[in-house]
C-alpha cells in the first residue's frame, strides 16, 4: 500500500512537491513564530524576575510652592520610620526607603559617574539582588551611617578593572567609602538602563555625607515587597491606612503619597507579550490551514484524474476501505513529510533569526510536538474527504470515466 502511494506521488512529482510546500510553509511558520514568541516571553520574564517580584513603589506626595506643584515624589513626605512601620505590617516582606542620586566616583586613576542609591539592607531583598563577593552592609551600618558601599558589576569593571574591589576604598564625591561587596549581575532593567552601573550605600550615609538633604530621615521613595502576589491588594489597603494614620490625614483629604504596583506593570508587559506570541501563532496557523486545504484540493483533483483507475481496482476486488486507505495514505505521507521538512526549516529559521538579530528564540519540544500533531491532523482531516469520495464511487461509473 505504501509503495502504491509512493508511486502515485512520484508520477506527479511537481504537484506533490507543491502540495507539500503548502504544508512546509505552514508548519515552518508555526514553529518559527512560536519559538520567537516564546523567546520574547522568556526575555520579559527574565527582566521581571530581575526587577524583583511582588513589588510596590511608594512615592511621596506633591508639594506646592507659590502655586508650582511638584508632582509625585516631589516632596519629602515619607520617612525612614514610615518604612520601618510598613515593614511590620502583615504580608510585607521588606520595605526599603530609597534616596537615589548620581555621583562621580573615583578609585585611584579611574573615575566614573554612576547611579548611587542610598537604602537599607531590605533593598537587596526586595530587588532579589544578592552580593556575590564580600558581604552586604547591615542595619547597624545604616544606624551609624558608616561609609560602606556595595558596587554593581559595571561600576566594578570601570573602576577596578581586573582588581578585586572588596576591601578597597573608593571616593564618592570626595568621601572615602570601603567597598564591602560586589553585587550579582542584574542586566538590563525594564526601562533599558544598565542596572549593574550602580552603587548602593546606607541611606543615612547618602543623606548626610553624599547628597545632603534639607530633611534628614525623609525620603521620596520607598520600595515595598510583599510575601506573595496574592496578598498585594490587601497590603495596599493596609499600607494606605497606616500611612494616612501616621500622616494624620483626615477623612476626605487627599493622601500625601501614592502607591504603585510594579508587579501589575510587569504583568501587563508579560501579558502583552503573551498575546503577541498567541497572535503570531494564530497567523501562522492560518497558513497551516491553507496548506491543509491545498492538500484537499490536490487530492480531489487526483481522485477525479484517477477515477478510471479506481474503477479498475474496484472491478478486480478492491473494497471501499482499500481505496479509502490508498488515498488517505497519500494525504498522510504528503502532510507528514511536509511537516517534517517544515519543522526543520522552522527550527533553522529560528536559529538564523537568533544569529542575525540576537533575538531570543526558544524551540520547545512542546511547540514542535503541537505543530507536528496539528499538521498531521490537518492532513488526515483534509485527506479524508477526497479519499471517501474515491471510495464511494460507483464502480461502473468509474470504469466508464474517460
Amino acid at each position: 500500500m505504501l509503495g502504491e502511494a509512493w508511486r502515485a506521488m512520484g508520477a506527479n512529482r511537481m504537484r506533490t512537491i507543491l502540495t507539500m510546500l503548502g504544508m512546509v510553509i505552514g508548519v515552518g511558520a508555526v514553529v518559527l513564530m512560536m519559538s520567537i514568541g516564546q523567546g520574547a516571553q522568556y526575555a520579559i520574564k527574565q527582566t521581571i524576575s530581575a526587577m524583583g517580584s511582588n513589588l510596590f513603589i511608594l512615592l511621596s506626595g506633591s508639594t506646592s510652592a507659590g502655586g508650582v506643584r511638584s508632582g509625585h515624589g516631589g516632596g519629602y513626605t515619607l520617612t525612614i520610620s514610615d518604612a520601618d512601620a510598613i515593614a511590620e505590617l502583615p504580608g510585607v516582606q521588606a520595605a526599603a526607603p530609597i534616596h537615589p542620586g548620581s555621583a562621580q566616583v573615583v578609585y585611584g586613576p579611574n573615575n566614573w559617574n554612576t547611579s548611587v542609591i542610598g537604602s537599607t539592607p531590605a533593598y537587596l531583598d526586595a530587588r532579589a539582588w544578592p552580593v556575590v563577593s564580600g558581604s552586604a552592609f547591615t542595619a547597624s551600618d545604616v544606624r551609624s551611617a558608616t561609609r560602606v558601599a556595595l558596587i554593581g558589576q559595571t561600576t566594578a569593571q570601570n573602576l577596578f578593572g581586573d582588581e578585586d574591589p572588596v576591601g578597597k576604598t573608593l571616593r564618592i564625591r570626595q568621601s572615602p567609602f570601603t567597598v564591602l561587596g560586589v553585587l550579582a549581575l542584574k542586566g538590563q532593567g525594564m526601562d533599558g538602563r544598565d542596572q549593574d552601573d550602580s552603587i548602593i550605600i546606607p541611606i543615612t550615609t547618602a543623606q548626610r555625607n553624599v547628597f545632603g538633604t534639607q530633611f534628614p530621615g525623609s525620603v521620596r521613595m520607598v520600595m515595598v515587597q510583599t510575601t506573595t502576589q496574592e496578598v498585594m491588594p490587601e497590603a495596599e489597603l493596609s499600607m494606605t491606612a497606616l500611612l494616612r494614620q501616621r500622616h494624620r490625614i483626615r477623612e476626605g483629604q487627599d493622601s500625601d503619597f501614592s502607591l504603585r504596583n510594579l508587579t501589575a506593570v510587569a504583568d501587563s508587559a508579560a501579558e502583552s507579550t503573551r498575546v503577541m506570541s498567541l497572535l503570531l501563532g494564530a497567523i501562522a496557523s492560518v497558513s497551516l490551514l491553507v496548506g491543509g486545504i491545498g492538500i484537499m484540493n490536490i487530492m480531489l483533483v487526483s481522485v477525479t484524474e484517477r477515477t478510471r483507475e479506481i474503477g479498475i481496482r474496484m472491478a478486480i476486488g478492491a473494497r471501499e476501505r482499500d481505496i479509502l486507505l490508498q488515498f488517505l495514505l497519500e494525504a498522510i505521507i504528503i502532510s507528514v513529510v511536509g511537516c517534517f521538512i517544515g519543522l526543520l526549516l522552522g527550527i533553522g529559521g529560528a536559529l538564523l533569526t537568533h544569529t542575525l538579530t540576537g533575538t531570543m528564540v526558544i524551540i520547545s519540544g512542546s511547540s514542535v510536538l503541537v505543530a507536528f500533531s496539528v499538521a498531521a491532523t490537518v492532513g488526515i482531516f483534509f485527506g479524508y474527504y477526497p479519499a471517501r469520495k474515491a471510495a464511494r464511487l460507483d464502480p461502473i461509473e468509474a470504469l466508464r470515466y474517460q
Partner: protein
Amino acid sequence: MTNTAVIRIEGLSKSYQTSAGLFPALNDVNLTIMPGEFVAVMGPSGSGKSTFMNILGCLDAPTVGSYALDGRPVASLDRDELALLRNRTIGFVFQGFNLLQRMSLRDNVALPLIYSGIELAERQKRADEMLAKVGLSDKADSLPNQISGGQQQRVAIARALINKPRLLLADEPTGNLDSRTGEEIMALFDALNSEGITIVLVTHEADIARHAQRQVHFHDGRIISDELTREIAA
C-alpha cells in the same frame, strides 16, 4: 464438477432513470450457466448485453429478479462481500485492457492479490507464473505502453486469472485488436476453458463467437435465442 449452476438468473430486469423517463435495459432475462461452459453473449449495441455483463460481474445490481452466483444470491451481499466475489470468484477482461499505466506488468497482474491480503513475495511469484502462462515472462518489468495491444490483453487475462476464479467474464476482449491477434487471444480462452474455467464472453463478431459452445443473442433487453453451437469438449 458440482451440479450447482455457476450462474442462475431468473426474471431479471434492469431499468435506468433517464431524463426521458425510465429506460428498460434488460427485460425479464432468464439464464442458467453450468460449470465449464463457454458462452458467447451477442447482440447489437444497445441490446443490453453490456448491462448484463455488469450485473454478472457484480458491478451493478438488477432492479427486479434474482441472480445467484455459485448458488449464492447476490442481492443479499453488501459492498465488501461483492468486492470479495470480484476478487476471488470472478475474473474480468475488458475491451480496453484497463491496465494501470504506471505499473510494471508484474505489478498489474499481482494487483488483485493485494486485495486478497497476500504477501509481496508470494504475489510476485504468482504474477510471474501467470505471465509465463500467457507467454510474457520476459516482459514482467515492462510498462503497459511498451507492449502491443495483444500483449496487453494477455496481461489483462493473466490479471483476471491470478486468483483462480471459477468464472471469467470478457467484454469484447478482441474489440481493440486486429483479427490475427484476436484469434491468438481466443486460442488462449479456448485453452482456459478446456482447463475447466467457465467463460462468458460478449462480442458482436460471429468469428469470435464461434469459439463458444453456446451463443446467447440479446435484442432490446431480451434474450431472443439461446443455442448450443458446439458440443462441450470431453
